[in-house]
Protein backbone atom coordinates (compact mmCIF):
# COMPACT_ATOMS: atom_id res chain seq x y z
CA UNK A 1 0.00 0.00 0.00
CA UNK A 2 3.05 2.20 0.05
CA UNK A 3 2.77 5.33 -1.99
CA UNK A 4 -1.00 5.19 -2.24
CA UNK A 5 -3.13 7.93 -0.67
CA UNK A 6 -4.55 6.94 2.69
CA UNK A 7 -8.06 7.35 4.12
CA UNK A 8 -9.45 7.84 7.60
CA UNK A 9 -11.42 4.76 8.59
CA UNK A 10 -13.83 4.30 11.46
CA UNK A 11 -14.30 0.75 12.71
CA UNK A 12 -17.73 0.78 14.35
CA UNK A 13 -20.02 -1.94 15.67
CA UNK A 14 -23.53 -0.45 16.00
CA UNK A 15 -24.83 -3.68 17.53
CA UNK A 16 -22.43 -3.31 20.43
CA UNK A 17 -23.65 0.10 21.52
CA UNK A 18 -24.05 -1.27 25.04
CA UNK A 19 -20.29 -0.82 25.37
CA UNK A 20 -20.68 2.96 25.11
CA UNK A 21 -22.23 4.91 27.93
CA UNK A 22 -23.88 7.32 25.51
CA UNK A 23 -25.53 4.72 23.31
CA UNK A 24 -23.11 5.22 20.44
CA UNK A 25 -21.74 2.33 18.39
CA UNK A 26 -18.71 0.57 19.83
CA UNK A 27 -15.60 1.84 18.09
CA UNK A 28 -12.41 -0.15 17.77
CA UNK A 29 -9.33 1.81 18.71
CA UNK A 30 -5.85 1.06 19.97
CA UNK A 31 -2.74 -0.66 18.74
CA UNK A 32 -4.15 -3.80 17.07
CA UNK A 33 -6.87 -1.91 15.22
CA UNK A 34 -4.50 0.90 14.25
CA UNK A 35 -2.08 -1.73 12.93
CA UNK A 36 -4.75 -3.50 10.88
CA UNK A 37 -5.76 -0.22 9.28
CA UNK A 38 -2.15 0.79 8.68
CA UNK A 39 -1.52 -2.55 6.98
CA UNK A 40 -4.50 -1.82 4.76
CA UNK A 41 -3.07 1.56 3.83
CA UNK A 42 -5.56 3.44 5.99
CA UNK A 43 -5.54 5.39 9.22
CA UNK A 44 -7.80 4.96 12.22
CA UNK A 45 -9.99 8.02 12.54
CA UNK A 46 -9.24 7.86 16.27
CA UNK A 47 -5.62 6.83 15.79
CA UNK A 48 -3.57 6.72 18.95
CA UNK A 49 -6.58 6.43 21.26
CA UNK A 50 -6.52 3.67 23.84
CA UNK A 51 -8.79 0.64 23.77
CA UNK A 52 -11.07 2.21 26.37
CA UNK A 53 -12.14 4.96 24.04
CA UNK A 54 -15.27 3.10 23.02
CA UNK A 55 -16.72 3.54 26.49
CA UNK A 56 -15.75 7.22 26.74
CA UNK A 57 -16.67 8.45 23.28
CA UNK A 58 -19.35 11.12 23.21
CA UNK A 59 -21.67 12.24 20.46
CA UNK A 60 -19.76 15.45 19.72
CA UNK A 61 -16.50 13.62 19.09
CA UNK A 62 -18.34 11.10 16.96
CA UNK A 63 -19.98 13.81 14.86
CA UNK A 64 -16.70 15.69 14.45
CA UNK A 65 -14.74 12.65 13.26
CA UNK A 66 -13.42 12.85 9.71
CA UNK A 67 -14.72 9.48 8.53
CA UNK A 68 -13.79 8.79 4.92
CA UNK A 69 -14.61 5.09 5.06
CA UNK A 70 -16.80 3.22 7.52
CA UNK A 71 -15.68 -0.29 8.43
CA UNK A 72 -18.92 -1.49 9.90
CA UNK A 73 -18.83 -4.44 12.24
CA UNK A 74 -21.53 -7.07 12.27
CA UNK A 75 -22.15 -8.21 15.83
CA UNK A 76 -24.89 -10.76 15.27
CA UNK A 77 -26.17 -12.72 12.31
CA UNK A 78 -29.31 -10.59 12.37
CA UNK A 79 -27.45 -7.31 11.83
CA UNK A 80 -28.58 -5.68 8.59
CA UNK A 81 -25.46 -4.21 7.08
CA UNK A 82 -27.04 -1.66 4.77
CA UNK A 83 -29.57 -0.61 7.34
CA UNK A 84 -26.94 -0.04 10.05
CA UNK A 85 -24.66 1.86 7.69
CA UNK A 86 -27.59 3.92 6.44
CA UNK A 87 -28.60 4.85 9.98
CA UNK A 88 -25.09 6.03 10.78
CA UNK A 89 -24.80 8.00 7.55
CA UNK A 90 -28.15 9.69 8.06
CA UNK A 91 -27.24 10.55 11.66
CA UNK A 92 -23.82 11.89 10.67
CA UNK A 93 -24.32 13.29 7.17
CA UNK A 94 -21.24 15.49 7.42
CA UNK A 95 -18.90 12.49 7.28
CA UNK A 96 -17.23 12.32 3.86
CA UNK A 97 -18.10 8.61 3.85
CA UNK A 98 -21.79 9.47 4.11
CA UNK A 99 -21.90 11.43 0.87
CA UNK A 100 -20.39 8.56 -1.08
CA UNK A 101 -22.03 5.77 0.95
CA UNK A 102 -18.54 4.41 1.58
CA UNK A 103 -18.58 1.40 3.85
CA UNK A 104 -17.11 -2.06 4.09
CA UNK A 105 -18.39 -4.87 6.33
CA UNK A 106 -16.14 -6.56 8.86
CA UNK A 107 -16.92 -9.03 11.58
CA UNK A 108 -14.63 -11.13 13.78
CA UNK A 109 -11.68 -10.50 11.51
CA UNK A 110 -10.71 -7.25 13.20
CA UNK A 111 -10.34 -8.99 16.56
CA UNK A 112 -6.89 -10.34 17.37
CA UNK A 113 -6.44 -13.67 15.62
CA UNK A 114 -5.53 -15.53 12.44
CA UNK A 115 -8.41 -13.93 10.49
CA UNK A 116 -6.90 -10.46 10.70
CA UNK A 117 -5.58 -10.82 7.15
CA UNK A 118 -9.20 -10.88 5.94
CA UNK A 119 -9.90 -7.55 7.57
CA UNK A 120 -6.73 -6.06 6.11
CA UNK A 121 -7.64 -7.30 2.63
CA UNK A 122 -11.27 -6.12 2.74
CA UNK A 123 -10.40 -2.69 4.09
CA UNK A 124 -7.46 -2.27 1.70
CA UNK A 125 -9.70 -3.02 -1.28
CA UNK A 126 -12.26 -0.50 -0.05
CA UNK A 127 -9.63 2.16 0.63
CA UNK A 128 -7.83 1.64 -2.68
CA UNK A 129 -10.45 0.39 -5.11
CA UNK A 130 -8.41 1.53 -8.08
CA UNK A 131 -5.23 -0.30 -7.09
CA UNK A 132 -4.08 -3.27 -9.11
CA UNK A 133 -5.56 -6.20 -7.17
Amino acid sequence: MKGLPTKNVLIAYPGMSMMNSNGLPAVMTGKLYDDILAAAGARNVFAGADTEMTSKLNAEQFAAADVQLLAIGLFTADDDLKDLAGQLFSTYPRWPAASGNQFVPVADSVYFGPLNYLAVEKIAKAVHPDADW
Partner: protein
Amino acid sequence: MTSTVPTTVGAGDPAAQPPAPRRRPRRPALPAVIVLVAVLLAAMVAATAIGSVPLSPGTVLGVLFDRLTRRPAADPLADQIIWDIRFPRVLAGALAGAGLAAAGVCLQALVRNPLADPYLLGVSSGASLGAVLMPVAAPAALAGLGVTGAAFGTACLTVVVVFLLAQRGGRMADRRLILAGVAVAYLANAVTSFVQLSIAPGQLQGIMFWLMGSLAGVQWTALATMTPLVLSGIAVLLLSVRGLNGIAAGDDTAFGLGINVHWFRIRLLLAGSLLTAAVVSAAGGIGFVGLVIPHVARLLVGGDHRRLLPVALLLGAAFMVLVDLGARTLAAPSELPIGIITAVVGAPYFLYLLRRKEIG
Protein backbone atom coordinates in the same frame (compact mmCIF):
# COMPACT_ATOMS: atom_id res chain seq x y z
CA MET B 1 -28.16 4.27 41.91
CA THR B 2 -28.36 7.28 44.06
CA SER B 3 -32.02 7.82 44.06
CA THR B 4 -33.76 4.55 44.59
CA VAL B 5 -33.76 4.47 48.36
CA PRO B 6 -36.69 6.58 49.44
CA THR B 7 -36.22 9.08 52.19
CA THR B 8 -38.60 8.26 54.97
CA VAL B 9 -36.98 9.65 58.07
CA GLY B 10 -39.55 11.34 60.16
CA ALA B 11 -42.44 10.14 58.08
CA GLY B 12 -45.64 10.93 59.87
CA ASP B 13 -43.71 12.04 62.92
CA PRO B 14 -45.49 14.95 64.57
CA ALA B 15 -42.12 16.30 65.60
CA ALA B 16 -40.98 16.49 62.01
CA GLN B 17 -40.74 19.97 60.65
CA PRO B 18 -43.35 20.22 57.92
CA PRO B 19 -42.58 22.44 54.99
CA ALA B 20 -45.66 24.46 55.82
CA PRO B 21 -45.63 28.20 55.62
CA ARG B 22 -44.50 29.71 58.88
CA ARG B 23 -45.11 33.09 60.34
CA ARG B 24 -42.09 35.00 59.23
CA PRO B 25 -41.45 38.26 57.46
CA ARG B 26 -42.61 38.01 53.86
CA ARG B 27 -39.69 37.62 51.49
CA PRO B 28 -40.35 39.12 48.07
CA ALA B 29 -39.96 36.63 45.25
CA LEU B 30 -39.53 39.03 42.35
CA PRO B 31 -35.82 39.82 42.88
CA ALA B 32 -35.07 36.12 43.28
CA VAL B 33 -37.04 35.29 40.15
CA ILE B 34 -35.24 37.97 38.12
CA VAL B 35 -31.84 36.81 39.32
CA LEU B 36 -32.68 33.16 38.70
CA VAL B 37 -33.98 33.83 35.19
CA ALA B 38 -30.68 35.57 34.43
CA VAL B 39 -28.68 32.71 35.96
CA LEU B 40 -30.68 30.14 34.03
CA LEU B 41 -30.18 31.94 30.73
CA ALA B 42 -26.47 32.39 31.40
CA ALA B 43 -26.15 28.71 32.34
CA MET B 44 -27.95 27.65 29.16
CA VAL B 45 -25.73 29.83 27.00
CA ALA B 46 -22.58 28.52 28.69
CA ALA B 47 -23.75 24.91 28.44
CA THR B 48 -24.50 25.37 24.74
CA ALA B 49 -21.14 26.97 24.07
CA ILE B 50 -18.94 24.55 26.03
CA GLY B 51 -18.28 20.98 24.99
CA SER B 52 -15.66 18.45 23.98
CA VAL B 53 -15.48 19.96 20.49
CA PRO B 54 -14.35 23.58 20.92
CA LEU B 55 -16.58 26.09 19.14
CA SER B 56 -16.26 29.84 19.36
CA PRO B 57 -19.10 31.91 20.85
CA GLY B 58 -19.53 33.51 17.44
CA THR B 59 -20.04 30.10 15.86
CA VAL B 60 -22.59 29.15 18.50
CA LEU B 61 -24.52 32.36 18.00
CA GLY B 62 -24.29 31.95 14.24
CA VAL B 63 -25.80 28.45 14.40
CA LEU B 64 -28.64 29.61 16.65
CA PHE B 65 -29.27 32.61 14.40
CA ASP B 66 -29.31 30.43 11.28
CA ARG B 67 -31.71 27.98 12.90
CA LEU B 68 -34.05 30.61 14.28
CA THR B 69 -34.16 32.42 10.95
CA ARG B 70 -34.43 29.13 9.01
CA ARG B 71 -31.34 29.85 6.99
CA PRO B 72 -29.09 27.06 5.67
CA ALA B 73 -26.31 26.11 8.06
CA ALA B 74 -23.07 27.93 7.33
CA ASP B 75 -21.11 25.24 9.20
CA PRO B 76 -22.81 21.81 9.06
CA LEU B 77 -20.60 20.30 11.78
CA ALA B 78 -21.19 23.16 14.20
CA ASP B 79 -24.88 23.04 13.34
CA GLN B 80 -25.10 19.35 14.22
CA ILE B 81 -23.14 19.71 17.44
CA ILE B 82 -25.03 22.78 18.65
CA TRP B 83 -28.52 22.08 17.40
CA ASP B 84 -28.77 18.29 17.46
CA ILE B 85 -26.51 17.39 20.38
CA ARG B 86 -26.01 20.23 22.85
CA PHE B 87 -29.20 22.25 22.61
CA PRO B 88 -31.69 19.42 23.22
CA ARG B 89 -29.52 18.31 26.09
CA VAL B 90 -29.49 21.77 27.66
CA LEU B 91 -33.25 22.09 27.28
CA ALA B 92 -33.75 18.62 28.74
CA GLY B 93 -31.53 19.54 31.68
CA ALA B 94 -33.57 22.65 32.40
CA LEU B 95 -36.81 20.70 32.13
CA ALA B 96 -35.52 17.86 34.28
CA GLY B 97 -34.31 20.21 36.99
CA ALA B 98 -37.53 22.18 37.01
CA GLY B 99 -39.60 19.00 36.98
CA LEU B 100 -37.75 17.35 39.83
CA ALA B 101 -37.78 20.53 41.91
CA ALA B 102 -41.51 20.93 41.37
CA ALA B 103 -42.11 17.29 42.21
CA GLY B 104 -40.07 17.73 45.37
CA VAL B 105 -42.09 20.76 46.47
CA CYS B 106 -45.30 18.89 45.70
CA LEU B 107 -44.43 15.68 47.54
CA GLN B 108 -42.94 17.42 50.56
CA ALA B 109 -46.26 19.22 50.96
CA LEU B 110 -48.28 16.10 50.18
CA VAL B 111 -46.69 13.91 52.84
CA ARG B 112 -45.78 16.86 55.07
CA ASN B 113 -42.23 15.64 55.35
CA PRO B 114 -39.25 17.89 54.62
CA LEU B 115 -37.12 14.88 53.79
CA ALA B 116 -39.41 13.63 51.05
CA ASP B 117 -38.13 13.65 47.50
CA PRO B 118 -39.59 12.69 44.12
CA TYR B 119 -38.38 9.12 44.47
CA LEU B 120 -40.26 8.57 47.70
CA LEU B 121 -43.07 6.75 45.95
CA GLY B 122 -40.89 4.28 44.09
CA VAL B 123 -41.30 5.99 40.74
CA SER B 124 -37.58 5.99 40.00
CA SER B 125 -37.23 2.35 41.00
CA GLY B 126 -40.12 1.42 38.76
CA ALA B 127 -38.62 3.33 35.85
CA SER B 128 -35.25 1.67 36.39
CA LEU B 129 -36.87 -1.74 36.32
CA GLY B 130 -38.51 -0.97 32.99
CA ALA B 131 -35.24 0.32 31.55
CA VAL B 132 -33.34 -2.77 32.60
CA LEU B 133 -36.04 -5.22 31.55
CA MET B 134 -36.50 -3.71 28.10
CA PRO B 135 -33.29 -4.93 26.46
CA VAL B 136 -33.40 -8.39 27.98
CA ALA B 137 -37.01 -9.42 28.45
CA ALA B 138 -39.32 -7.31 26.30
CA PRO B 139 -41.18 -9.09 23.52
CA ALA B 140 -40.47 -7.92 20.01
CA ALA B 141 -43.88 -6.24 19.88
CA LEU B 142 -42.74 -3.79 22.55
CA ALA B 143 -39.35 -3.12 21.02
CA GLY B 144 -40.59 0.13 19.49
CA LEU B 145 -41.16 1.52 22.96
CA GLY B 146 -37.46 1.84 23.57
CA VAL B 147 -35.86 2.17 26.98
CA THR B 148 -37.49 5.56 27.59
CA GLY B 149 -40.99 4.34 26.84
CA ALA B 150 -40.53 1.22 28.91
CA ALA B 151 -39.19 3.24 31.83
CA PHE B 152 -42.13 5.64 31.67
CA GLY B 153 -44.61 2.78 31.49
CA THR B 154 -43.25 0.94 34.52
CA ALA B 155 -42.93 4.21 36.43
CA CYS B 156 -46.63 4.89 35.89
CA LEU B 157 -47.47 1.31 36.80
CA THR B 158 -45.51 1.70 40.02
CA VAL B 159 -47.50 4.79 40.96
CA VAL B 160 -50.76 2.95 40.41
CA VAL B 161 -49.62 0.05 42.61
CA VAL B 162 -48.43 2.41 45.35
CA PHE B 163 -51.65 4.39 45.14
CA LEU B 164 -53.78 1.24 45.48
CA LEU B 165 -51.70 0.00 48.42
CA ALA B 166 -52.00 3.38 50.13
CA GLN B 167 -55.78 3.25 50.13
CA ARG B 168 -57.50 2.62 53.40
CA GLY B 169 -61.24 2.86 53.67
CA GLY B 170 -61.37 4.83 50.46
CA ARG B 171 -58.85 7.35 51.76
CA MET B 172 -55.17 7.80 51.03
CA ALA B 173 -53.15 7.78 54.24
CA ASP B 174 -49.78 9.58 54.44
CA ARG B 175 -48.06 6.82 56.34
CA ARG B 176 -49.42 4.07 54.10
CA LEU B 177 -48.42 6.05 51.02
CA ILE B 178 -44.84 6.36 52.19
CA LEU B 179 -44.57 2.76 53.36
CA ALA B 180 -46.14 1.45 50.17
CA GLY B 181 -43.67 3.53 48.17
CA VAL B 182 -40.75 2.19 50.17
CA ALA B 183 -41.89 -1.42 49.82
CA VAL B 184 -42.55 -1.20 46.09
CA ALA B 185 -39.24 0.63 45.56
CA TYR B 186 -37.27 -2.07 47.33
CA LEU B 187 -39.09 -4.80 45.43
CA ALA B 188 -38.40 -3.07 42.10
CA ASN B 189 -34.76 -2.58 43.11
CA ALA B 190 -34.43 -6.25 43.95
CA VAL B 191 -35.82 -7.32 40.57
CA THR B 192 -33.58 -4.77 38.84
CA SER B 193 -30.53 -6.17 40.61
CA PHE B 194 -31.53 -9.71 39.70
CA VAL B 195 -31.94 -8.79 36.05
CA GLN B 196 -28.57 -7.07 36.06
CA LEU B 197 -26.98 -10.30 37.27
CA SER B 198 -28.37 -12.17 34.31
CA ILE B 199 -27.42 -9.85 31.48
CA ALA B 200 -24.27 -9.84 29.41
CA PRO B 201 -21.35 -7.96 30.98
CA GLY B 202 -21.13 -5.68 27.98
CA GLN B 203 -24.65 -4.40 28.64
CA LEU B 204 -23.95 -3.46 32.24
CA GLN B 205 -22.07 -0.25 31.60
CA GLY B 206 -24.80 1.37 29.56
CA ILE B 207 -27.47 0.34 32.05
CA MET B 208 -25.50 1.51 35.08
CA PHE B 209 -24.90 4.86 33.45
CA TRP B 210 -28.63 5.19 32.80
CA LEU B 211 -29.49 4.18 36.36
CA MET B 212 -27.21 6.87 37.75
CA GLY B 213 -28.71 9.52 35.54
CA SER B 214 -27.51 11.04 32.30
CA LEU B 215 -28.68 13.50 29.69
CA ALA B 216 -26.10 12.28 27.19
CA GLY B 217 -28.54 10.44 24.99
CA VAL B 218 -31.33 13.02 24.97
CA GLN B 219 -32.41 13.99 21.47
CA TRP B 220 -35.27 16.07 20.10
CA THR B 221 -37.50 13.01 19.97
CA ALA B 222 -37.12 12.35 23.71
CA LEU B 223 -37.62 16.04 24.38
CA ALA B 224 -40.85 15.99 22.39
CA THR B 225 -42.22 13.36 24.77
CA MET B 226 -40.79 14.80 27.95
CA THR B 227 -41.71 18.45 27.41
CA PRO B 228 -45.53 18.26 27.41
CA LEU B 229 -45.53 15.89 30.36
CA VAL B 230 -43.26 18.08 32.47
CA LEU B 231 -45.02 21.31 31.50
CA SER B 232 -48.41 19.73 32.25
CA GLY B 233 -47.28 18.61 35.68
CA ILE B 234 -45.81 22.03 36.44
CA ALA B 235 -48.97 23.76 35.22
CA VAL B 236 -51.13 21.64 37.52
CA LEU B 237 -48.93 22.53 40.47
CA LEU B 238 -48.84 26.24 39.61
CA LEU B 239 -52.63 26.19 39.60
CA SER B 240 -52.60 24.43 42.97
CA VAL B 241 -50.38 26.72 45.03
CA ARG B 242 -53.21 27.87 47.30
CA GLY B 243 -54.17 24.29 47.98
CA LEU B 244 -50.53 23.37 48.53
CA ASN B 245 -50.31 25.98 51.27
CA GLY B 246 -53.44 24.56 52.84
CA ILE B 247 -52.43 20.92 52.65
CA ALA B 248 -48.93 21.65 53.92
CA ALA B 249 -50.47 23.26 56.99
CA GLY B 250 -52.63 20.19 57.64
CA ASP B 251 -55.79 18.54 56.41
CA ASP B 252 -57.96 20.55 58.78
CA THR B 253 -56.59 23.81 57.46
CA ALA B 254 -57.02 22.64 53.90
CA PHE B 255 -60.58 21.56 54.66
CA GLY B 256 -61.21 24.95 56.22
CA LEU B 257 -60.08 26.58 52.99
CA GLY B 258 -62.77 24.65 51.14
CA ILE B 259 -60.42 22.13 49.56
CA ASN B 260 -61.60 18.60 48.87
CA VAL B 261 -58.60 17.12 50.60
CA HIS B 262 -58.93 13.57 49.28
CA TRP B 263 -59.14 14.53 45.62
CA PHE B 264 -56.60 17.29 45.99
CA ARG B 265 -54.10 14.83 47.43
CA ILE B 266 -54.73 12.47 44.52
CA ARG B 267 -54.15 15.37 42.13
CA LEU B 268 -50.85 16.18 43.82
CA LEU B 269 -49.81 12.53 43.76
CA LEU B 270 -50.54 12.26 40.05
CA ALA B 271 -48.79 15.54 39.21
CA GLY B 272 -45.69 14.69 41.26
CA SER B 273 -45.51 11.19 39.86
CA LEU B 274 -46.04 12.35 36.29
CA LEU B 275 -43.21 14.84 36.65
CA THR B 276 -40.88 12.28 38.16
CA ALA B 277 -41.74 9.58 35.63
CA ALA B 278 -41.27 11.95 32.70
CA VAL B 279 -37.85 13.06 33.94
CA VAL B 280 -36.61 9.64 35.01
CA SER B 281 -37.66 7.97 31.77
CA ALA B 282 -35.62 10.47 29.76
CA ALA B 283 -32.66 11.13 32.03
CA GLY B 284 -32.47 8.21 34.44
CA GLY B 285 -32.41 8.43 38.19
CA ILE B 286 -31.08 11.81 39.27
CA GLY B 287 -31.09 11.97 43.02
CA PHE B 288 -31.20 14.79 45.53
CA VAL B 289 -32.38 17.55 43.18
CA GLY B 290 -35.98 17.19 44.30
CA LEU B 291 -34.88 17.12 47.91
CA VAL B 292 -32.34 19.92 48.05
CA ILE B 293 -33.75 22.51 45.64
CA PRO B 294 -37.08 23.02 47.46
CA HIS B 295 -35.20 23.66 50.69
CA VAL B 296 -32.83 26.14 49.10
CA ALA B 297 -35.83 27.88 47.55
CA ARG B 298 -37.48 28.04 50.98
CA LEU B 299 -34.37 29.69 52.35
CA LEU B 300 -34.65 32.30 49.60
CA VAL B 301 -38.35 33.15 49.62
CA GLY B 302 -39.97 31.29 52.50
CA GLY B 303 -42.54 28.51 52.52
CA ASP B 304 -45.49 30.17 50.79
CA HIS B 305 -45.99 28.01 47.71
CA ARG B 306 -47.08 30.99 45.64
CA ARG B 307 -43.49 32.20 45.83
CA LEU B 308 -41.75 28.93 46.58
CA LEU B 309 -42.83 26.99 43.50
CA PRO B 310 -41.71 29.48 40.80
CA VAL B 311 -38.39 30.02 42.56
CA ALA B 312 -37.84 26.27 42.98
CA LEU B 313 -38.60 25.72 39.28
CA LEU B 314 -36.03 28.25 38.15
CA LEU B 315 -33.47 27.16 40.71
CA GLY B 316 -33.86 23.50 39.76
CA ALA B 317 -33.56 24.27 36.06
CA ALA B 318 -30.41 26.37 36.47
CA PHE B 319 -28.87 23.85 38.87
CA MET B 320 -29.42 20.93 36.53
CA VAL B 321 -28.05 22.72 33.49
CA LEU B 322 -24.89 23.58 35.43
CA VAL B 323 -24.60 20.07 36.87
CA ASP B 324 -24.87 18.56 33.39
CA LEU B 325 -22.24 20.97 32.15
CA GLY B 326 -20.01 19.75 34.96
CA ALA B 327 -20.82 16.13 34.16
CA ARG B 328 -19.50 16.46 30.63
CA THR B 329 -16.53 18.72 31.30
CA LEU B 330 -15.05 17.72 34.67
CA ALA B 331 -13.63 14.43 33.36
CA ALA B 332 -13.69 15.23 29.62
CA PRO B 333 -13.76 13.50 27.23
CA SER B 334 -15.42 10.98 29.56
CA GLU B 335 -18.78 11.92 30.99
CA LEU B 336 -19.74 11.51 34.60
CA PRO B 337 -23.23 10.36 35.47
CA ILE B 338 -25.23 13.34 36.70
CA GLY B 339 -26.36 11.41 39.74
CA ILE B 340 -22.80 11.37 41.04
CA ILE B 341 -22.53 15.16 40.98
CA THR B 342 -25.99 15.80 42.43
CA ALA B 343 -25.22 13.29 45.18
CA VAL B 344 -21.93 15.01 46.00
CA VAL B 345 -23.84 18.26 46.39
CA GLY B 346 -27.00 16.82 47.85
CA ALA B 347 -25.75 14.26 50.34
CA PRO B 348 -24.00 16.76 52.64
CA TYR B 349 -27.09 18.95 52.55
CA PHE B 350 -29.27 15.96 53.32
CA LEU B 351 -27.10 15.13 56.33
CA TYR B 352 -27.28 18.75 57.41
CA LEU B 353 -31.06 18.56 57.28
CA LEU B 354 -31.05 15.38 59.33
CA ARG B 355 -28.74 16.91 61.91
CA ARG B 356 -30.75 20.12 62.13
CA LYS B 357 -33.87 18.03 62.60
CA GLU B 358 -32.29 16.06 65.42
CA ILE B 359 -31.15 19.25 67.12
CA GLY B 360 -34.53 20.85 66.62
